[in-house]
């Protein structure tokens, strides 16, 4: 999986590409927690390039969301489709973490 992080005034817009699974989730989690360590308080996750997510992937997003919440930051998701959207819905993660239409709406939510 590739992680493309871009700094914006509200924090970071992060595009993930590939599979967010048992193999790739630990690396994402490590990197994401580093952003928070560095002072980032808002993460907009672009999941349009993610074609697969498992419970390990969900867990890494949960860890980031909890970490950000503990420092009064937030995470927002956009770009989900197909089975990825289905997995977020089954797990209730789409009600746990704000899901918005697109990048603009995501940045607005963070701001």
């Amino acid at each position: 999986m590739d992680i493309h992080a871009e700094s914006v005034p509200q924090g970071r817009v992060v595009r993930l590409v590939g599979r967010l699974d048992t193999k790739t989730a630990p690396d994402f989690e490590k990197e994401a927690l580093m952003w928070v360590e560095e002072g980032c308080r808002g993460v907009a996750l672009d999941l349009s390039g993610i074609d697969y997510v498992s419970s390990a992937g969900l867990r890494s997003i949960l860890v980031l969301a909890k970490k950000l919440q503990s420092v009064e930051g937030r995470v927002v998701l956009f770009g989900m489709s197909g089975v990825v959207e289905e997995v977020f819905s089954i797990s209730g993660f789409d009600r746990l973490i704000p899901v918005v239409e697109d990048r603009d709406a995501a940045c607005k939510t963070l701001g």
Partner: protein
Amino acid sequence: MERTWSATLDHMEDMRQFILGAAEGKLSPRREAHLDLAVEEIVVNICSYAYEIPPGEITVRVEETEDSLGVEFIDNGVPFDPLAAEEPDVTRPLADRDQGGLGILLVRRVMDEVHYRREGGRNCLRIAVKKG
């Protein structure tokens, strides 16, 4: 068709290829993704609960019927029925959420059938997905 691996995550990709290879052309892309997900969740579960060092074994058996594809995961680890655990409450707020049970919840929701049985000192978990 059937194959056995040692129960470590290093073999996850092999198991995945074995099962998805057998499913090729028989499932819609959406159902194939469901099967992919169920395979990961089940193998991760078995590799984490079932064994000490050295790792035990997982046997994967794929069976095709006229209208469905069945996959059986057989391991010789400690007795463990993943279906017996209570389902996580997916409506709880962020601070109260952990990952416990999420994997098996996903398996139950995306598969058409999930059965567990303990047989001859082994755990057998069978999933099935309808073709098409």
